[in-house]
């Protein structure tokens, strides 16, 4: 009905607009878009990052400390709350009132095993209040109970301030990324925290999709299907996701998350090495001293960052233990040796995941690297070795990929009148099997061309211009359907014969329009351009 009305109106409007051209609409809209900026926020376990979409491009903005990535650390001191690098550095002295990795318990109940793990690790005391975890902050006179959502809110607020200072104006429209494994409660908690910080959350998107969007995979030419591997090695977690890109739509095939591997593991390994070095030269064991270890961790963190670009790095800690200074050089080779088992552990899930979805490494067309630790050259090398023919996408700094993708999505959504998406998960009717067409190549051998790859969102329509030798008076188009990835035809669906064609010098141009409805039924129309002769078939769905 609506469709019909649209048609009627279209005719009507065309008639109207021909009468008086009205150029003001596009102009006004463009102006509208330009004035509206939107941001993408990535709120990670260890770090948060914000990117702005403005004037058609997305860019990460630096915070007040000049860093493009803000540690997701919140420290409470007396009456003030400190977010970011200052809180992280102050943690050495104020560990009990500093909240780190709040995302781990965000939106979880107290009994949740993940939450329990966080409670065990957290230096800031966590209490159980009505089955919800709460931080207990000592503000000097009294203890304050702070919910994880409030902590997240502070981080979001910091990100908002960062974006505002870069834009010079207020910005509320935001797209927030969430890990794929986040449940409904966690998503809601994150959304509430962001809204509490003054954001208008346009949409919550999954991190791997944001990564794909940042590189614009499948956005330019929406036909065809490919598989992309998203490798995210963040501060505390490793996530590997295999995604299918089909007709510009992304679909997660499988994902694997390991919360025990992350950038911190490497830092930890390096810090242990530094501690043993210190012990060797000064005969003092600092591993039992938490403050010294925290200092060493910070130093190791810096060294690790340096080693991603330089061959060697210097670690220097002033007055590490009993007034003794520590000075040590670490080479990249040493670092790689120290972390070799961790590297192996980080690479391991890829193969398992590919096996799980039944793909081989050559089926993957692109690998997207995200997360700060994906910068490590050794790791990149190892992944490259795993996928020798595949392009590793790392042109965007890995820790900025996800916020950039979120900002791009924000740019798409902002200015839309109805950007809100009621359902969180979108199920789409898709083509179940590959639809293939049999052709002959130059030598006359049979080749099969995929018209609709399996997983194509429906309804869909494709128009192909096929050619037949001009000498022929009749051509035959054979359609097959096949399951699986090897594209070998299994079942002939239909054949279309165009006969009584006039032989001519050039090839016959046959325009073939294939339409698939949402239920999967197929309609094929072939028209020979020269004579206008056409044939059509409708293939019904197997019941």
């Amino acid at each position, binding site marked *: 009905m609506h469709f019909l009305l649209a048609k009627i109106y279209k005719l009507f409007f065309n008639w*109207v607009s021909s*009468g008086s051209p009205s150029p003001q609409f596009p102009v006004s809209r463009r102006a509208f878009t330009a004035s509206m900026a939107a941001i993408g926020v990535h709120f990670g376990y260890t770090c948060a990052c914000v990117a702005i979409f403005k004037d058609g491009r997305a860019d990460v903005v630096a915070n007040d400390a000049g860093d493009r990535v803000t540690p997701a650390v919140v420290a409470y001191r007396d009456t003030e709350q400190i977010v970011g690098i200052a809180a992280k550095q102050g943690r050495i002295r104020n560990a009990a009132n500093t909240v780190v990795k709040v995302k781990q318990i965000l939106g979880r109940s107290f009994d949740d095993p993940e939450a329990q793990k966080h409670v065990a690790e957290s230096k800031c005391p966590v209490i159980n209040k009505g089955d919800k975890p709460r931080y207990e902050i000592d503000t000097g006179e009294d203890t304050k109970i702070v919910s994880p959502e409030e902590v997240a809110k502070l981080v979001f607020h910091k990100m908002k301030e960062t974006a505002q200072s870069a834009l010079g104006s207020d910005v509320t429209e935001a797209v927030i990324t969430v890990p794929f494994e986040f449940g409904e409660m966690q998503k809601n908690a994150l959304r509430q925290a962001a809204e509490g910080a003054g954001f208008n959350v346009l949409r919550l998107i999954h991190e791997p999709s944001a990564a794909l969007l940042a590189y614009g995979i499948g956005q330019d030419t929406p036909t065809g299907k490919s598989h992309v591997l998203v490798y995210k090695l963040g501060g505390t977690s490793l996530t590997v996701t295999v995604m299918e890109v089909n007709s510009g739509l992304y679909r997660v095939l499988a994902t694997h998350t390991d919360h025990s591997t992350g950038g911190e593991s490497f830092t930890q390994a390096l810090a242990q090495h530094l501690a043993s070095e210190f012990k060797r030269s000064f005969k003092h064991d600092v591993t039992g001293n938490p403050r010294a270890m925290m200092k060493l961790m910070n130093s190791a963190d810096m060294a690790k960052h340096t080693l991603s670009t330089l061959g060697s790095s210097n670690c220097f800690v002033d007055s590490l233990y009993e007034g003794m200074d520590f000075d040590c050089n670490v080479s990249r080779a040493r670092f790689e040796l120290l972390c070799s088992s961790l590297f192996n552990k980080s690479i391991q899930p890829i193969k398992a995941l590919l096996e799980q979805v039944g793909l081989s490494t050559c089926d993957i067309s692109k690998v997207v690297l995200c997360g700060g630790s994906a910068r490590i050259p050794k790791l990149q090398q190892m992944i490259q070795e795993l996928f020798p023919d595949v392009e590793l996408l790392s042109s965007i700094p890995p820790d900025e990929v996800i916020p950039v*993708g979120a900002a791009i999505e924000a740019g798409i959504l902002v200015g839309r009148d109805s950007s809100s998406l009621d359902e969180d*998960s*979108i199920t789409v009717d898709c*083509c179940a099997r590959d639809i293939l067409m049999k052709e002959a190549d130059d030598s006359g051998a049979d080749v099969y061309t995929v018209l609709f790859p399996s997983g194509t969102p429906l309804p869909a329509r*494709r128009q192909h211009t096929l050619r037949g030798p001009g000498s022929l008076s009749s051509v035959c188009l054979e359609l097959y359907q096949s399951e699986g990835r090897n594209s070998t035809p299994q079942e*002939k669906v239909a054949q279309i014969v*165009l006969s009584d064609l006039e032989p001519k010098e050039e090839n016959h141009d046959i325009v073939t329009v294939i339409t698939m409805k949402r239920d999967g039924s197929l309609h094929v129309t072939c028209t020979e351009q020269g004579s206008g002769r056409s044939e059509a078939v409708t293939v019904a769905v197997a019941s």
Partner: protein
Amino acid sequence: MLKEAVEGQVTVVCNAIAASVQFQVEPVGRWFEAFLKRRDRNVSASFQELEEEEELSEESEDEELQLEEYPMLKTLDPKDWKNQDHYAVLGLGHMRYKATQKQIKAAHKAMVLKHHPDKRKAAGEQIVEGDNDYFTCITKAIEILSDPVKRRAFDSVDPTFDNTVPSKSEGKENFFEVFAPVFERNARWTTKKHIPKLGTMDSTFEEVDNFYSFWYNFDSWREFSYLDEEEKEKAECRDERRWIEKQNRASRAQRKKEEMNRIRTLVDTAYSCDPRIKKFKEDEKARKESEKKAKAEAKRREQEEKERARQAELEAARLAKEKEEEEAKQAALQAKKEKDIQKKAIKKERQKLRTTCKNWNYFADSEAESVKMMEEVEKLCDRLELASLQSLNEVLASGSKEESKAAVEKQVQEVNAQLQREKEAEVQARQASRSVEQASSGSGGGNKGWNEEELQLLIKAVNLFPAGTNARWEVIANYMNLHSTSGIKRNAKDVINKAKNLQKLDPHQKDEINRKAFEKFKKEHTAVPPSVDNAVPSERFEASGAEANTASWTTEEQKLLEQALKTFPVSTPERWEKIAAVVPGRTKKDCMKRYKELVEMVKAKKAAQEQG
């Protein structure tokens, strides 16, 4: 390149195609948005078309707009613009509050193009001059709808909005069918995003809870300024304006209150009708009930367990006791039996011994001897144990007369010796008990023994401090402690007890004491002549005497001695042995010594009398 069709090949469908499957896709990217749009409008544009139209997308979006001509448009009265349906006037009657600004603008444009007086005039239509043309209504409509504030005001009183709230009875029947649309249409007034759905019967507790908390905290943007009766702009002066404002505010507040009440009633009704709430409550109740039951059950079980344990314990105790008793009984029975057997055996043995002895004629030659032997044998029968009797009998049975005699005599001797020993032991025991008695009588009621010296001292003290002396007994005690040589500390109580005891003593005892005192006195006097050197051997002698004679002579013994001395005159052969036999616990030596002492005593007395 397509292949040539083989002869006879025709267009044909040979197989059905696989049905579509559903996948979850990520809600990102422009193609997703395009897809959403297509899906929402239910059109199946191909990607190619979209690609082509990409540049024209701005227009194409507007093109999708569908306008419905308002049939009464031309009959509208411009004066009554306030009561017109602005959306309908612009042809957006089907979109209403969902219409975007862009759509409203486009619709207005379309309307203007069609209904502008100039346009119509050009088409040859008769135009009413001035504001009376219906085109004014279109202008008014766009004026209201293009201004967000005014549009909101109009939306708030949308004439097509159904304000009704289902009643309880309606909701009771089919709750979800009745309430779902009501909540859905009222949700448009919320200022919040993400409106929770009413859900179904299977909704979880959290979902339902979330739903009701949303509706109980419903924050509506609905306002009723559109219904203002007076227009502020029409006022002529400030005062009037203020008055109007006040009036309006009051009526708006009133309406707002009504609206809130309406929502509240709706939610209350829904809440009370909601079968899920009822279910949850019941579940909760059932849960509590079951918990309680389980608790009670557990308690009861515990109690039972305890009871059972106690019972078992008691039972065990009872059984043990019974068993014990039984055993004791058995043992007693056994013992009795054994005893009987033994008795019988012993009887038999005795009989045997007697007969044997009789057979042997008691190993005697004469009658007297045989009588004596008979006595002895009887004694043996009495005294000997079963085993020795048996052995004796065996010996008797096996041996000759002489041997038997020897054996019997040996046994007799043994028995006699044993008897003697027993007798001595008995005498010893008696003596010991007597001495203890004596000691206790000597010490009187006091716990600590009072010796002779102390008694004397006590009597002296009592006489020294006669009745009436202040704190007499304390003084006496002190005096005694001061003068006593025994070193035993006496207190007033001891002293008073002893004194009373002494007073109570029968005359005989008094006599004894007196006599003892006299004896002592005498001893002292007699002991005076020997030099100090003799004191040691005399003491030694006494000590050696004490060995034979553990205790001094009691009055009883004295009496017995005196009696014996009288019964056995000096002429009696073995006089002292006989005397000693009469006085138990005393040897012959003791008696002789005592006698000598007495004689000396009497002599001394006589001498004293003679002297006196």
